């Protein structure tokens, strides 16, 4: 007969059954885990790496764009330098150096010797004048088209005797087109700077320059042409080929100054134009919803604003502006610091505070365009805003011990300003209607870094901004 003792024995046997761990068993288990619970590849590191790389690249682009915006605009330079006496050292501004590279167009330093084949490339700035896009340079043996914009450029006295007459009569203009075909609507205006191509310390390689003057220096005539160092893709015909020169020549307005000074305002003007094209003006409007916490959403109100933006690089820009709008929300006494001036004691806290505030907002945002095409681009933005509380109307709602509900209004004007205390995050889409005009749609959220308004509430805002952007100085 089976007894309960047997059952007990069996239970004890089971409880005292001991088995040792085997590593082989874990290997089999691991295979099973890899099959059913595969471990995800650690992408966090890669994500962090890419984030850091993106940040580093953005910073690099920002710094390089800022530093490049400070550099003077380098224009194509073409002036002819006559062969000067040996040993003449002519230096332009200290900022300019002689380049050995044929491709260099910056005027740096000129060394003139008997064997110098030095040519001065005319610094050319293009201005919009129809019909004048042909190259015309002229120089005498000892004349130098004072080409540099830089007032600090040092040119040997002899060589500084610019043949003003020749230059004024044949103010060189230059086009980038090697065949000197007219480009509609463009007149190339000449400003003279010096370009020297060095073969040896004692020599300079002269660039062929088209001349119309008969008294062009022989050395200049014999110079070999390296178009790359003078003008991109353009060779200047020799004086013996007046036909080509004539086709390439055109008299420029005699009033065009020859001295250094004209280069500066032209360069400045060009630089100013480039900088201006980066500016944009914005008009924005959209719905805004403010709330304290999630439980008590406020009312959706419209906000309007004007702004200005500046494109630091193709991808990074900054925007600021001025917005106005109402923020209507409710808060409870836990979220709102009730003033002691209410007729009820702080112990009898209002069960609800109704707020109606009119706010000026000044945001400063950095915008990053991460997906761009000719017509479309997507962007993200982050920045800080300042709230200027123009008018704050509060209604403190209390419940009396008798159960009645009473309200106590309170109003404040221009009492609270929160400078750069609101963190704004947004992202959106921009559609380029034209090169100057574009439309944006931009959902956003704004979170306070500190309390807002008289009640020091954590007032969050969200909404969508519809913006029209205009670049008044941009290219059509």
């Amino acid at each position, binding site marked *: *007969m089976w007894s309960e003792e047997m059952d007990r*024995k069996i239970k004890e046997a089971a409880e005292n*059954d*001991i088995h040792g761990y085997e590593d082989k068993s874990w290997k089999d288990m691991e295979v099973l885990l890899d099959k059913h619970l595969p471990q995800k590849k650690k992408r966090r590191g890669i994500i962090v790496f890419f984030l850091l790389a993106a940040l580093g690249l953005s910073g690099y682009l920002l710094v390089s764009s800022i530093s490049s915006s400070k550099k003077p605009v380098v224009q194509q330079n073409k002036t002819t330098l006559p062969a000067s006496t040996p040993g003449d050292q002519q230096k332009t501004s200290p900022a300019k150096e002689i380049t050995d590279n044929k491709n260099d167009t910056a005027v740096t330093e000129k060394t003139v010797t008997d064997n110098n084949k030095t040519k001065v490339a005319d610094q050319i700035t293009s201005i919009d004048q129809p019909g004048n896009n042909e190259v015309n340079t002229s120089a005498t043996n000892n004349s130098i088209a004072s080409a540099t914009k830089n007032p600090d450029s040092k040119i040997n006295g002899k060589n500084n005797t610019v043949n003003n007459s020749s230059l004024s009569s044949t103010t060189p203009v230059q086009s980038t087109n090697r065949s000197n075909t007219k480009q509609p609507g463009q007149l190339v205006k000449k400003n003279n700077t010096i370009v020297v191509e060095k073969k040896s310390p004692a020599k300079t390689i002269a660039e062929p320059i088209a001349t119309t003057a008969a008294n062009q220096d022989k050395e200049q005539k014999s110079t070999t042409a390296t178009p790359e160092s003078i003008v991109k893709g353009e060779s200047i015909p020799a004086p013996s080929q007046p036909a080509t020169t004539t086709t390439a020549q055109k008299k420029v307005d005699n009033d065009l100054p020859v001295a250094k000074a004209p280069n500066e305002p032209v360069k400045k003007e060009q630089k100013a134009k480039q900088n201006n094209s980066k500016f944009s003006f914005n008009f924005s409007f959209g719905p805004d919803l403010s709330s304290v916490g999630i439980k008590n959403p406020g009312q959706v109100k419209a906000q309007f604003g004007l702004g200005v933006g500046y494109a630091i690089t193709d991808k990074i820009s900054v925007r600021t502006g001025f917005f106005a709008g109402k923020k209507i929300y409710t808060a409870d006494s836990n979220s709102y610091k009730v003033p002691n001036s209410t007729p009820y004691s702080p112990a009898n806290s209002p069960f609800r505070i109704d707020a109606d505030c009119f706010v000026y907002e000044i945001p400063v945002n950095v915008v990053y365009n991460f997906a761009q095409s000719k017509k479309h681009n997507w962007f993200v933005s982050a920045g800080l805003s300042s709230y200027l509380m123009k008018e704050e109307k509060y209604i403190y709602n209390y419940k009396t011990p008798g159960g009645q509900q009473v309200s106590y209004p309170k109003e404040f004007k221009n009492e609270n300003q929160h400078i750069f205390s609101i963190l704004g995050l947004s992202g959106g889409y921009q559609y380029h209607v034209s090169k100057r005009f574009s439309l944006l749609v931009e959902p956003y959220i704004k979170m306070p870094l500190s309390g807002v308004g008289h009640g020091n509430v954590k007032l969050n805002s969200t909404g969508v901004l519809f913006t029209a952007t205009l670049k008044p100085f941009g290219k059509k």
Partner: protein
Amino acid sequence: MLLSAEELQIHIRGCSLNNRESQKKIYSSFYGYAMSICHRYTNREEDTSEILNDGFLKVFVEIYRFKPAYADTVSSFKGWLRKIMIYTAIDHFRKNHKHQVMGELNETYMHVPSSHEDAVDKISYDEILSAIRFLTPGYRTVLNLFIIEGFSHEEISKELGISVGTSKSNLAKARKQLQKLLYQQNQTVNKNVV
């Protein structure tokens, strides 16, 4: 070595995140305990390992749901692990030996003289467990569930998909067969001693 309560909680969190190190730690710590359960349900080492690893896989898949039923985290986890291993063993039986549960009616039983009942005390745990492993799979499962795990016949019938009567019948047969095996073992030992 068994983990402490704090270590166990840490590794449970790690297992929830599919951390291999935490999984290995829990596996190695509760390997012996789980093996003692699985060992009783099969007589083949391969099947034992299969039930063990399948059971631990279920543990690691569902470990994020584990919440200690009482203050002692280790005991709670052992109880939770035990249940998973038992049900994994039942699943294994249903997949491989279910037909044997129904087909045990023609088994003949050997009468074990009552005079040998006091030999129960002399039977070692190893002998009992070894004898249990030699039982027919159906008998073995019912005996494990009823006597060791404490399942009722209703629960056994529900888990194995059999009737309550069949569960009771299989239990009786399991006991008989176990007695026979233990008697035979005892007889063999006595002969060797002599």
